[in-house]
Structures are given as structure tokens and as C-alpha cells.
């Protein structure tokens, strides 16, 4: 077998017997080369079948609520001809080569890629294993493999009724050549894919046995509570170590340059010790930084032309010559992730290795960073991944692991480092503040003839995957406008990078650039419709004649919502479209605005065309999830900075939606045979403008700056 083929699919005897399959995929080289020194092809996902017939899938992607620990096994089981419940999932160890997400190039769970990346490879994995098992049975029976079939974990020779379970065949199968090509099922033949399947991870999550990183318990483990400089970029000045150590159970105080940790026999003692230590800080250069400075910088930066992301025709000229010009500025705040599982990490560092127990979206990047920090070799830094108590982008960063290892460098034995919720909120890496200027030219009938959009903000891509910056443009930051679904004749989109003051770190947040962009695009299109005195749905449809999937989801959501039917006073419906992650989402929000300006989302209708569906119930769950996550952000979400420090502290002042505030949600799935799209994020992206457009419909107030807060209150 040629090397290239061997790397694509390899089979071998598993340790202890059984069949082990490794799969290789080409990964996006520009991303990979930035982050790893990978070969063009590498084994990618591992599937193991043991002598008991148990199927083990070592998943390159981690479960953080999105349902991949069910949908990925479904893909394998579909072609392998086993029950989904027969596929056990294991967290993959850190390895950017072996466990790379083929759409991203490194071992990463994010960007709504799981199904898009794995739809073909995992089916191929299952099919390859099945073909080899069938071949092994045929060899044993001395019959033509074509006369055998696989079903329910057993190979059957129909003519003679002979049957052999997969477990009895794995050793023989492991010695067979790997077929170069296997036929995959046509969607019409699917018995699992496309039918709702119960999640495989639910039982542990209802009886307390599911293990998150924070649940790591090791013999002799200490507990540490962390405080970092409240002012970004500040330093630890002094602490009262004696008072901390006087707290019963406290064993140690660890001073870092810009942080302090108190180590104890349990978290409460550590927390009490930290309070007693009363750390004092040197604020440093950011002592006076406030939102006025940050937003002022953005507004000034947005005055100058940026790197051009799209230029169709001559938008400036078309706007100058248009019957009317409409301008708007939209602002979107810093946002925290506030995952329910606060940041935490458990480390056992010895002279010959570093074991790390954590829930992470990026095991490989984390491993590489800890190698750098500790000077240890790759095989000495062992990442033990866990279920994530919420990801949303927060766990695409390894700053929490850096902190834990820095502390562990001073502690003998294993130590669990916990961030109190206040640290989690005040030292998050935030969704960046974005400042968008949009201008349209419209004709005498109010129809848009030109669109000009300048996007100004921090670049996560430039820090995280610099090779993806092309011609000075951050593709994530501009995505929604550069890939505008609406067919406006002349379009100009440019991007200005403006970072916040140093020390305020920004990162991915559910929906990434699409979420920020969708809010601006869908709000401004709504403004154009309002200015033209057109129905917001009809106005959009008129520009979607080349985008039938987008048109269809808008129409479906509108139809289900009773669009156009009268509503009681104080209520309104708003509509929005999100095209991103390979999916099409249309949503209508019905909102009630009280006389006091209190905004209550009453009902959300969501139409989803995400191409071929793998687990429809997961798609529904992700829409419900995205909608509620987005409503929290749109209604309340805002991190503000005063005197160089974050003003919010905990769920009391960083509000998230409660069950009593959650709307009724109806999700409608569109049957499609198009390639599968992502579903983790677009629900969030779509709901924010649908909400603010509904507020406009109810009150005539246009929300151009998030969060909504009390802006719906009559002046």
C-alpha cells in the first residue's frame, strides 16, 4: 500500500485484540501551518471495535451541550450497521495531528463545524469497518462477500443463515487490506441519520454522575482559589499572607506577578484565606480606562477607510446619486460567556510530567502552550479532557490552564484551581465591542440601490489564526456583510481593526462575526424597509430572488408566526434572516413592550434549513438554545469597564434570561438534501435583530446599540 493511502485509512490490531481504524483527511493548510507542523495527511478519527463487539469512537470533538456525542456516533452506526447505543464515545487526548477538525486544521470544537466536518469521514469510517468485517466473515465461510450482509452488529450469510457477530471477526478483519473505496449509503437508505435519536449523554446529566473538569478528584488534591488584578494590566502589590494562613485548612499562598492564589484543603477554606489575604494591587497604566475611551477610539477609527472586503460596482457614487441616503451607526458591547461551569483546571506537575484535567475546546493548543510554559516535552504534557459545562467560545482559550499551571508550579501534588464567578466574569476574554457604520442609497420607491458598510473592532482572527487574514481583512469580522444574502446592486464593505487597550482580551463568542454582522445587516435592512414604508418581510424577499433557501426560511417563519395579522397594542413582530455556517435560519420574534418599557419576548418562530439533518431533535435543541442565549445577550448582556476594571461581578449584575422570561419557541425544520450546515451558532445570531425589529414594530423605537436595556422606555 502506498504511504498516502496508508495514512488516509489504516487498520491494525488493537491493543488487547480487536480492530483499530485510523482515518486521514486533508486539512485546510493555511490554518494548520499557523498552528502546527502537520503533514498534509494524518490519521484523523479513531474507531475501535473490540472482541466483545463494542464500538469505541475516540472523538476529536468534545461534547459541550451541542449533541455531538450523539450525532457523530449516529454517522458511524449508520454505515457500520450497529445500534447508536452500541457506540461508546471517549474524549480524545491532545493531538493536533491525529485529532484535527478537518474544517479547521487543528483539534478544535467550534465554529459550528462538527457535522460539516464529520458527515462524510465518519460515515466512511463506519462503512470501511463494515466492509472489512464482512470480508472477514466471507473469508471464514469461504463465500463471496457480496452474498453477505451486515445488520445490527452481525454479518449474515443469507443463503445459509450463518451469522457471526462483529466481535468474533475483529481479529481477522484487522489482518485484511483496507479497501480503497467504499460505497456510502444514499440518503434515501438511511435508517438512523435524519431521525430523531435520544442523546447518549443524558443519563449521567440527570443523576449527577457526568464528569466535568471541575469534578476532578485525585488523592491528596488541594484546592486553590484565584484572584487576578482587578485592573487590566495591574500587578500584585501586597497581601497579608499570615492572615491567610491563619484560616484553618489553608496550606499555602502562591504569589504571581499579577495574581494570587490561596491553596487549602477545600475550596471554602481557600476562599476564606483569599479574603483574609486582602490582596492590594498596583493598578498600572489602565487605571483610568473607561468605556468612553474605548468607544471613542472605535468611533475615531471608523472615520477612516479600512481594508476592502467586498466591492461591487461603485457604492459611494450610487449613494451620492440616490434619491435618498440613510445612515446608521450600530454598537455592540463587550460580552462575557458566563458558562455555567466557572473556569477551573486541575494540574499535577512533577519533574517528569504535567497532567491537566480540564474541559477544553482546544486540547492540542492547550498542550502546546503548556509545553512552552513548563519546558516539558509533548508526551509529558497530558491533557485529560472532560465534558464542558458550557463552551460558547470561552473554552477555545487556555488562559485558565496557564493560570492553573503557574500555580501548580508552586504546589506539591495535584491542585484544583477554581475561579470564583466574580473572577470568571471580570477576567473573561470578551466578545469584542464592535462599531458599525452603514449607509444605503435608496431610489424614489425606497428600494436600496447601494450598500456601504464599515466594520470596526478587534480582530480575534489576527491573534488566533493570523494566516486567515487576507489583504488586511478579517474574514470573520466582515462575513455577514461581505456575504450579504441580499442582491443590492452596488456593495462596499470595509474593515478597520481597532483593538481595545492592552490587557482587555477578546475572543470568540457564540456566533462569532456572524452574530455581530447579522445584527447590523438585519437591523439596517429593517430600517430601509421602514423608511420605504414597506413590509419588512416583503422588502427582504424582493432582494432574495437569487437566494431561494434564504427566501424559503423567511417565508416559513413568517407564515407560522401569523405575520401580518393584527396584534394587541404594545406588541410587535420582528423578522430576521441569518445565512452563515452553511445554514439558513429565518426567525420571527413576537414581543410585548409594557408601558414601563419592559420588553418581554413572547413567542419565537424559527425556520431552519441546515441542509441534510443528522439528529433533528438536536437541531431543535440548538435552536432553542441559541435563541435563549441570544435573547440574554440582546436584552441584558453588557460588560462595561470603568477605571480599568469590569463593573459586572456575578449573575446579579450580568443578567441572563430566566425560565420565567423565556418565550415559547416553535422550531420548523425544512427537509433538504443539501450538504449539512452548522447549527450551534446561527440561532443566536438571528434572534437579536429579530427581537429589536419586533421592538421597533411595537414601539417605533429603533435599537441601534445593544443591549436593549431600558431603551424601549418612552422618553
Amino acid at each position, binding site marked *: 500500500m502506498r504511504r498516502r493511502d496508508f495514512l488516509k485509512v489504516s487498520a491494525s490490531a488493537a491493543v488487547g485484540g480487536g480492530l483499530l481504524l485510523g482515518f486521514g483527511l486533508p486539512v485546510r493548510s493555511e490554518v494548520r501551518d499557523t498552528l502546527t507542523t502537520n503533514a498534509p495527511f494524518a490519521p484523523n478519527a479513531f474507531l475501535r471495535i473490540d472482541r466483545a463487539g463494542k464500538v469505541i469512537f475516540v472523538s476529536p470533538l468534545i461534547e*459541550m*451541550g451541542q449533541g455531538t456525542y450523539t450525532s457523530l456516533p449516529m454517522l458511524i452506526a449508520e454505515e457500520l450497521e450497529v445500534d447508536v447505543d452500541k457506540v461508546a464515545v471517549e474524549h480524545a487526548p491532545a493531538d493536533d495531528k491525529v485529532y484535527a477538525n478537518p474544517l479547521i486544521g487543528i483539534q478544535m470544537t467550534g465554529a459550528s463545524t462538527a457535522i460539516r466536518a464529520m458527515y462524510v469521514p465518519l460515515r466512511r469510517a463506519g462503512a470501511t469497518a463494515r466492509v472489512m468485517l464482512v470480508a472477514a466473515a466471507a473469508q471464514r465461510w469461504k463465500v463471496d462477500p457480496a452474498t453477505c450482509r451486515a445488520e445490527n452488529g452481525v454479518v449474515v450469510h443469507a443463503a445459509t443463515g450463518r451469522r457471526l457477530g462483529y466481535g468474533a471477526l475483529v481479529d481477522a478483519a484487522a489482518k485484511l487490506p483496507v479497501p480503497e473505496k467504499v460505497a456510502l449509503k444514499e440518503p434515501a437508505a438511511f435508517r438512523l441519520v435524519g431521525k430523531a435519536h*435520544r*442523546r447518549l*449523554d*443524558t*443519563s*449521567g*446529566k*440527570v*443523576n*449527577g*454522575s*457526568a464528569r*466535568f473538569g*471541575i*469534578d476532578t*478528584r485525585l488523592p491528596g488534591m488541594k*484546592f486553590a482559589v484565584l484572584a487576578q488584578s482587578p485592573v487590566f494590566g495591574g500587578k500584585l502589590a501586597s497581601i497579608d499572607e499570615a492572615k491567610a494562613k491563619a484560616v*484553618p*485548612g489553608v496550606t499555602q499562598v502562591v504569589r504571581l506577578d499579577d495574581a494570587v492564589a490561596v491553596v487549602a*484543603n*477545600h*475550596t*471554602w*477554606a481557600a*476562599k476564606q484565606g483569599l479574603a483574609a489575604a486582602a490582596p492590594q494591587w498596583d493598578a498600572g497604566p489602565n487605571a483610568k480606562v473607561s468605556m468612553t475611551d474605548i468607544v471613542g477610539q472605535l468611533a475615531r477609527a471608523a472615520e477612516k477607510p479600512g481594508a476592502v472586503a467586498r466591492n461591487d460596482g461603485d457604492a459611494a457614487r450610487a449613494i451620492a446619486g440616490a434619491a435618498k441616503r440613510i445612515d446608521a451607526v450600530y454598537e455592540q458591547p463587550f460580552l462575557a460567556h458566563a*458558562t*455555567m*461551569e*466557572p473556569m477551573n483546571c486541575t494540574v499535577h506537575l512533577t519533574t517528569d510530567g504535567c497532567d491537566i484535567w480540564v474541559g477544553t475546546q482546544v486540547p492540542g493548543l492547550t498542550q502546546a502552550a503548556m509545553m512552552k510554559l513548563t519546558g516539558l516535552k509533548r508526551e509529558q504534557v497530558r491533557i485529560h479532557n472532560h*465534558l464542558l*459545562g*458550557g*463552551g*460558547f467560545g470561552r473554552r477555545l482559550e487556555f488562559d485558565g490552564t496557564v493560570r492553573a499551571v503557574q500555580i501548580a508550579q508552586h504546589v506539591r501534588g495535584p491542585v484544583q484551581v*477554581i475561579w*470564583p*464567578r466574580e473572577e470568571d466574569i471580570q477576567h473573561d476574554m470578551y466578545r469584542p465591542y464592535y462599531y458599525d457604520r452603514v449607509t444605503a442609497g435608496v431610489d424614489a420607491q425606497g428600494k436600496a440601490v447601494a450598500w456601504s458598510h464599515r466594520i470596526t473592532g478587534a480582530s480575534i482572527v489576527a491573534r488566533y489564526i493570523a494566516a486567515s487574514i487576507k489583504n488586511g481583512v478579517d474574514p470573520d469580522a466582515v462575513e455577514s456583510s461581505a456575504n450579504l444574502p441580499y442582491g443590492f446592486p452596488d456593495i462596499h464593505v470595509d474593515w478597520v481593526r481597532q483593538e481595545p487597550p492592552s490587557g482587555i482580551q477578546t475572543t470568540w463568542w457564540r456566533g462569532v462575526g456572524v452574530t455581530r454582522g447579522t445584527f447590523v445587516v438585519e437591523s439596517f435592512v429593517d430600517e430601509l424597509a421602514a423608511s420605504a414604508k414597506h413590509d419588512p418581510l416583503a422588502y427582504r424577499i424582493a432582494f432574495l430572488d437569487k437566494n431561494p433557501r434564504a427566501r424559503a426560511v423567511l417565508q416559513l417563519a413568517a407564515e407560522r408566526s401569523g405575520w401580518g395579522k393584527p396584534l394587541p397594542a404594545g406588541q410587535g413582530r420582528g423578522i430576521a434572516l441569518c445565512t452563515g455556517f452553511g445554514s439558513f435560519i429565518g426567525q420571527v420574534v413576537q414581543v410585548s413592550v409594557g408601558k414601563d418599557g419592559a420588553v418581554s419576548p413572547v413567542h419565537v418562530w424559527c425556520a431552519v434549513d441546515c441542509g441534510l439533518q443528522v439528529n433533528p*431533535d438536536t437541531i431543535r*435543541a440548538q435552536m*432553542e*438554545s*441559541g*435563541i*435563549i*442565549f441570544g435573547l*440574554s445577550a440582546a436584552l441584558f448582556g453588557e460588560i462595561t469597564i470603568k477605571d480599568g476594571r469590569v463593573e459586572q461581578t*456575578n*449573575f*446579579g449584575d450580568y443578567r*441572563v*434570561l*430566566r*425560565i*420565567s422570561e*423565556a418565550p*415559547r*419557541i*416553535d422550531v420548523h425544520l425544512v427537509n433538504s438534501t443539501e450538504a449539512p450546515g452548522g447549527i450551534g451558532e446561527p440561532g443566536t445570531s438571528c434572534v437579536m435583530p429579530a427581537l429589536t425589529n419586533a421592538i421597533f414594530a411595537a414601539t417605533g423605537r429603533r435599537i441601534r446599540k445593544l443591549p436593549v436595556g431600558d431603551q424601549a422606555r418612552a422618553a
Partner: protein
Amino acid sequence: MIRLNVNGKPRDVDVADDTPLLWTLRDVLNMTGTKFGCGQGLCGACTIHIDGQPARSCITPVSAAGGKRITTIEAVGATAAGKKIQAAWLALDVPQCGYCQSGQIMSAAALLAATPKPSDSDIDTAMAGNLCRCGTYPRIRAAIKKAAGVTDTGA
């Protein structure tokens, strides 16, 4: 040393009186099903039952629980209401990331035990203190109604 009754078993713990039950359960007794979320009684992730009543264990000192029956997620399935709630949670696939669900289930089980046929307003009152970032609220509501055998109007 304080003697606690946790899930029907006596447990002696050597912690200060003001130590919250949350950390006593998690760090001293290694019962990690009860979750830390906020430390201030704001999110409900740490909800347990004390004598059948829901309590936020992150702000309940061990001294307040002496002589009382503590029930955690690990044992709530042994109660009639807890068993029904867990079954409904499984049937409707309520959890996503799952981190808040121990607390959700403890609050829901306490609601069902006290109010066998809860209205939407009862559900709002009992569950509004349990935050979920994954947005499982619609399914939580539906699952409580399923466990209670009341019709879900989808509201």
C-alpha cells in the same frame, strides 16, 4: 466535627461551622453531582434538599443542616418526585451541557413533591432561580408537566 445526614447516611465532617454545604459535599465528601455556579445563591446550580425543601447549598452553612435530612442529586432518584422528574428529563432530552441540570432537577423535584400538578406560574416561581446558559428552559417546562401528567400547552 459535625455530623450530617446525607442521602440517609451519617457523615462526619471536620470543617468550620460556616463552611457551605456545597464545598462540604464536593470537596470533603467528594460528591461532585452538586455544582458550583455563582457562590451567592444567584444561579441555583448547587440546589439540594434539606428536609425535602430546596436550598442553595453554596450559601447554606453546615451548621444549619445538623440533624436535618440532606438529599442530593445522587439520591433524588430514590424519591417518588425525583424519579418522575429524572424520567421526564430523559424522555425529553432536557440537558445540553448538563452542568446546571443537577440544580434544575432538585428544584423541579421539590416543586413536584409539594405541588403535584403545577401550573405555568408555579413552574416560573419554583424554577426562576435556576439559570441555564444552554437555554433548556422550554424542555424543563415541558418535562415538569410531563412528570406531573399535566397537559403542555407549549406556553
